[in-house]
């Protein structure tokens, strides 16, 4: 009894392999007769996070001279209407109706099969497979052009090859984007192609910097200006944040202070990135940066020894304000809707669910965050020392656990309109590209200041899936709600992170010093102690105390 469905699936696998997998290999743009080895290199380093860093492109710009005359003629006579229709219905279906039509009609007119490599005649909408039936039709009717329905590539029977036309390619791209949106899929990957200006620049500057695996480019010590190690270690972490580095090295900042660029912290950081990746190994002095941050975050100015965490958040805040052109000190720096590079990289969304213990009514709010501060001590309510977290995962588990707010913290419930005890739970609604964790090692109260030096283990690779709202949230007993939160889960779901920087505080509260471990290339670790940089390994990093931990998302979606 049980073998039957298996047999059935096996044969479907076989068919799938035959019909579709071969079509999944996307071929690069290639025109016969011309070798395209114009290899341009703008790659400054090995891309860490996939896809976002400039890759190693073949120059795919339009070849001006030849190309297929048959397609050119077709274009001048028929334009784009037929092509668009065929594409939207049978290649990248843009609606449920189109998918139904495709399922019904994409079958070879002769052999009644779905493949191999089904084509559709661009002249009369005839379906034929590539094992001879589309060819037969083309010769019999003298219909020269057909479309491969798996890729939307145009086949010319007169040229006897696939041919390309940038106008049709652009149309195909547009339709594909609609189709992806219709299916709730992320944006498609587009490889980088140099614009005309970029092509000129590349030709003018033929020297390419190639970064070898053992290169020390990007590593620079930082002079201590008198207790400024808190700043040095944050700058080391920021300059080794892959996506931020990509942003600055590709020169993307458009200054909002055109009249006073010396006023702009983003410009200063852009300059720093150039310094860091110039290849020089001399230690840098960050006096301008410090001055700018003190000017724009006055609450920090003047302290003897500052807290690296406080400095990190203040720096992000000033950067965010300068990205958006907001000059006001403090004021409206709402990062809720902001699309600046700082918010694109560091902002996540924290969901807070407060459940009334009397009526089970849930009130949900979502707040943006730049970092997550994690308690290391005993839970204040219980004082149970066995519950002290021993790892980052323990901390996160505790952070996202439902917490009973107790009788002293009654909240007015919006459902039953009375003051009731409630449970509160925090979960991750949206994950940031860089997850920054702050281990609360410093306890300040009116009575004492102390440092918690207990060992908290943290992993090199971290999966945040268990702490996501749709996973962790067990408040809703309501089955409808549960079902809808599953539907919220994105189709392509990968929440894995890897560690790329750790900031440590060594010593006591009174006489302390900050150092940083940073990851260079894919897996080289270095210890940055002001102007001294030494090679380290991942063991040193994972055994260190850890004060601020920086993780980078492994897979990024295209936006």
């Amino acid at each position, binding site marked *: 009894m049980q073998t039957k469905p298996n047999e059935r699936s096996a044969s479907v696998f076989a068919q*799938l392999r035959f019909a579709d997998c071969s079509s999944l290999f996307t071929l690069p743009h290639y025109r016969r007769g011309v070798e395209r080895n114009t290899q341009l290199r703008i790659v400054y380093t090995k891309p860490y996070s996939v896809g976002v860093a400039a890759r190693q492109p073949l120059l795919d710009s339009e070849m001006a001279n030849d190309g297929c005359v048959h397609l050119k003629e077709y274009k001048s006579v028929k334009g784009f209407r037929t092509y668009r229709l065929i594409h939207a219905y049978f290649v990248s279906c843009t609606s449920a109706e189109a998918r139904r039509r495709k399922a019904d009609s994409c079958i070879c007119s002769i052999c009644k099969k779905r493949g191999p490599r089904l084509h559709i005649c661009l002249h009369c909408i005839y379906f034929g497979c590539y094992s001879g039936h589309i060819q037969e039709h083309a010769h019999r009717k003298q219909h020269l052009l057909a479309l491969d329905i798996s890729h939307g590539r145009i086949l010319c029977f007169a040229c006897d090859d696939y041919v390309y036309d940038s106008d049709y390619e652009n149309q195909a791209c547009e339709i594909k984007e609609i189709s992806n949106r219709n299916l709730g899929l992320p944006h498609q990957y587009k490889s980088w192609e140099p614009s005309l200006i970029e092509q000129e620049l590349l030709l003018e500057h033929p020297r390419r910097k190639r970064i070898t695996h053992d290169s020390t480019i990007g590593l620079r010590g930082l002079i201590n200006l008198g207790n400024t190690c808190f700043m040095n270690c944050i700058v080391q972490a920021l300059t080794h944040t892959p996506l931020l580095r990509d942003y600055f090295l590709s020169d993307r900042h458009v200054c909002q202070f055109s009249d006073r660029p010396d006023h702009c912290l983003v410009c200063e950081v852009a300059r720093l990135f150039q310094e860091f990746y110039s290849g020089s190994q001399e230690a840098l002095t960050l006096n301008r940066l410090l001055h700018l941050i003190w000017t724009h975050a006055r609450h920090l100015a003047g302290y003897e020894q500052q807290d690296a965490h406080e400095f990190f958040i203040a720096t992000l805040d000033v950067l965010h304000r300068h990205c958006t052109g907001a000059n006001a000190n403090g004021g409206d720096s709402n990062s809720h809707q902001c699309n600046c590079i700082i918010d694109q990289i560091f902002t996540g969304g924290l969901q807070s669910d407060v459940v009334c213990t009397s009526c089970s009514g849930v009130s949900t709010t979502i707040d943006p965050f730049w970092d997550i501060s994690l308690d290391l001590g005993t839970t204040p309510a219980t004082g149970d020392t066995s519950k002290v977290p021993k790892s980052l995962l323990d901390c996160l588990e505790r952070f996202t656990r439902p917490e009973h707010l107790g009788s002293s913290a009654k909240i007015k419930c919006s459902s039953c309109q009375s003051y009731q005890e409630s449970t509160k739970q925090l979960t991750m609604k949206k994950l940031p590209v860089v997850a920054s964790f702050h281990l609360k090692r410093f306890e300040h109260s009116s009575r004492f200041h102390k440092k918690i030096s207990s060992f908290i283990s943290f992993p090199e690779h971290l999966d945040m899936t268990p702490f996501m709202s749709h996973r962790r949230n067990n408040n809703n007993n309501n089955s409808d709600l549960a079902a809808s939160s599953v539907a919220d889960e994105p189709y392509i779901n990968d929440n894995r992170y890897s560690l790329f920087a750790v900031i440590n505080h060594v010593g006591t509260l009174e006489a302390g010093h900050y150092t940083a471990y940073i990851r260079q290339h894919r897996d080289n670790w270095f210890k940055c102690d002001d102007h001294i940089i030494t090679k380290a390994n991942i063991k040193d990093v994972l055994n260190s105390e850890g004060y601020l931990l920086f993780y980078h998302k492994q897979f990024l979606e295209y936006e």
Partner: protein
Amino acid sequence: MKEEDVLTAKMIESGELNRWKELLRLRLTECGWRDQVRLLCRDAIKQGNLEEMTVDQLNNEVTPKARQLVPDAVKIELLTKIKTFLQENTLQESQ
């Protein structure tokens, strides 16, 4: 219609086939497969007789190597998705 055809039609109609393709495309880009295959194609073009090299020939040349380069993790992820789909859809029919 044969059972296979019904299932294939369902895969297309529900958009699953498209989703799988996109997932596969994404994974192959992420793991560097796409770049590797680009290089394979470039090498094949450099070595081949340019006047006669067609996309089909390139396809024939590169496909066997490209298939081997697909990481197992990617295959397994995709197969799991396909299996789940098939199980769900064969279950529905028997009910």
